């Protein structure tokens, strides 16, 4: 359970940082965007268990946990990069221009105007990425680092119904809790949306 949570959290956080960097890169040129988005689509098509089996020997069986983590990061990246790119693209040009007119530099523009406006899209992507990461962790079981997946494996080999059900329910609960936490963070981070809704 603890392993499950720590793998999920670290994978999504690393994915978030890397995705942000890649999205900024993708913005710079059209072909780079095509490369990053196209590459991530191909990556997402590759079944998770297969990706894991390719990563493990490359990273080393001794560091199997790291291999699982890298796999999870890669999958969350696919969803997150897309969320960043569409989110940033959806920022109204008026807002960007107004900020430029007020003398905002590119960094200030990005953090004060563009990112907050892209936040709803990014948070939506983050929710999807987190929920699917929670589910994916279980496959780490092939190298004994599957969090609740290990419990499932035990339940399977001994045919323990109760244990299987507990592990499955815990997985889904974990996903729901994570989803609600991100939903709450999004709610706190975008106070202006509430104001607009109240009006």
């Amino acid at each position, binding site marked *: 359970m603890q392993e499950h949570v720590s793998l999920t959290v670290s994978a999504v956080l690393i994915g978030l940082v890397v995705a942000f960097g890649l999205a900024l890169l993708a913005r710079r040129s059209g072909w780079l965007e095509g490369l990053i988005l196209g590459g991530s689509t*191909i990556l997402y098509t590759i*079944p998770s268990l297969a990706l894991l089996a390719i990563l493990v020997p490359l990273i080393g069986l001794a560091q199997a946990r790291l291999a699982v983590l890298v796999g999870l990061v890669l999958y969350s990246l696919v969803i997150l990069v897309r969320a960043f790119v569409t989110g940033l693209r959806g920022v109204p040009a008026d807002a960007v221009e107004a900020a430029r007119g007020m003398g905002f530099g590119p960094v200030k523009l990005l953090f004060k105007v563009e990112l907050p406006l892209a936040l709803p899209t990014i948070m939506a992507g983050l929710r999807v990425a987190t929920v699917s990461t929670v589910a994916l962790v279980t496959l780490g079981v092939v190298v004994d680092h599957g969090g609740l997946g290990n419990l*499932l*494996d035990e339940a399977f080999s001994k045919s323990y119904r109760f244990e299987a059900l507990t592990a499955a329910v815990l997985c889904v609960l974990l996903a729901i809790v994570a989803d609600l936490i991100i939903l709450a963070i999004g709610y706190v981070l975008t106070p202006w949306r509430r104001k607009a809704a109240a009006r």
Partner: protein
Amino acid sequence: MSIFSKTGSWLTDGANWQGSTGIPQRVGDHLELTVIAVAVAMAIAIPVGLWLGHIGRGGILAINITNVGRAIPTYALLVLLFVAMGVFHRKLETLIALVAFALPPLLTNTYVGVREVDPRAREAAQGMGMTGPQVLRRVEIPLAMPLILDGMRIAVVQVVATTTVAALIGVGGLGRFVVDGFNNNDPGEYTGGAILVAVLALVFEGIFVLLQRRVDPVRRARRAGEARGAVTEVKTTADAVR
């Protein structure tokens, strides 16, 4: 020996290409499970999605079912079905799980596809005197086709991946190489198997990309419209899809 040469020699070893545990047999098993599961899921999800989309109800169900599907780990569902139904129906259990994971994208995409049809096109069809089923068949389905195909693409890719996971509960298919490879500590076998799975998934993805290009009625009408009249083409597309 590096991992690359190990994988290379596993993939090129003639012994791995023969018999009931050989690569062609496993690819066949994998394809069999995938095709059956997707066909069953389509037979259930597409009519329901079309109907819900046509009457414009059940949107919350059709959309949210995808999110629920994403939260349930494939492995967890397989183990649950296995311990509930016992060891003798492994293939059936796998098929149930595969169908369950293929349903959400099909249902959501079919529903959204029909819902997203331009209301003006729908009204025009009704104005021409088409009945409900005619509107569905000649206007809504052709226009929803790109999204329905996209749902099929997602479903197939998902099922190929889930079939791989099914090896963890002892079912055949290409996942066997991955799972057995890890158990035997044979990197050549699990990496080789993984590459085969990846290639299979990418081939399916490629097929659907091509299919989607061919079937998009708007694109086709535009292309044909340059040669003939666009109006007749819309009718032909509807007939072709039917």
